[in-house]
């Protein structure tokens, strides 16, 4: 591999373009997709722990209630909601709609607002943090 291949900056070219909301959301789509993929391990571990035994399930729950567990769960909640809401926008784009620059800017703000509201709502409804994080 020629040296120049290694030295090329990776997209998004932050030394060239200034960071805008649509770029951030696009980057987050990929990051949240990767986080969710890794999170599938947790989902399967949770299913197995419940099926396996009361001890395993209790162990899983005490991990999920720990500081690390709550951090992981919050990241997962955010990732799932961000990736799903933004993913629906991707599907709309694929039909050729909402592709004008101003539409992308305004839909980015709408996506961000929906994601923040739904993430907090889901977190509160599921009773995260208080009582947890011990």
């Amino acid at each position: 591999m020629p040296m120049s291949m290694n030295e090329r900056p990776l997209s998004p070219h932050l030394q060239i373009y200034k960071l805008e909301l649509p770029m951030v959301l696009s980057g987050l789509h990929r990051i949240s997709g990767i986080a969710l993929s890794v999170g599938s391990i947790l989902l399967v571990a949770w299913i197995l722990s419940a099926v396996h035994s009361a001890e395993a399930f209790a162990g899983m729950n005490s991990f999920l209630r720990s500081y690390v567990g709550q951090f992981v769960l919050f990241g997962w909640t955010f990732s799932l909601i961000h990736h799903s809401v933004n993913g629906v926008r991707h599907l709309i784009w694929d039909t050729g709609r909402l592709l004008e620059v101003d539409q992308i800017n305004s839909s980015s703000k709408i996506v961000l607002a929906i994601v923040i509201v739904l993430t907090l709502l889901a977190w509160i409804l599921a009773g995260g943090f208080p009582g947890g994080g011990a």
Partner: protein
Amino acid sequence: MKYRNPLSIARGLGSSKDGLGHWWMQRLTAIALVPLVFWFALSIIALAGQDRAHVLTWMQSPFHGVVLSLFLVTSLYHANLGLQAVFEDYIQARWLQLSSRITAGFAAVFLGFTGVFALLRLVFGG
């Protein structure tokens, strides 16, 4: 190149390997995931803080057991397709790209089978 029609070479629109099928399955699984994620989020909210007996009853119910399996398999399939694209973008060394893709594929199949097997065992005993 010997077997290609010169016209197709002139047009320059070669195959990008399995690009279209990959792109299409990524979208198809994404569409299927919209209702599945919605159901999953509501279920997790309802299950949070419940005891094991409650969780097991939920997993054993024909509807939720089947939909949970569908969610697991669909999201693993979709995640695997997505990760393949991510590896293609960031990993240049051919051998490393191939081994990452194979590892991710095996992991997805392993997780899917393990999860669904556990749910089947729960329902059918053994």
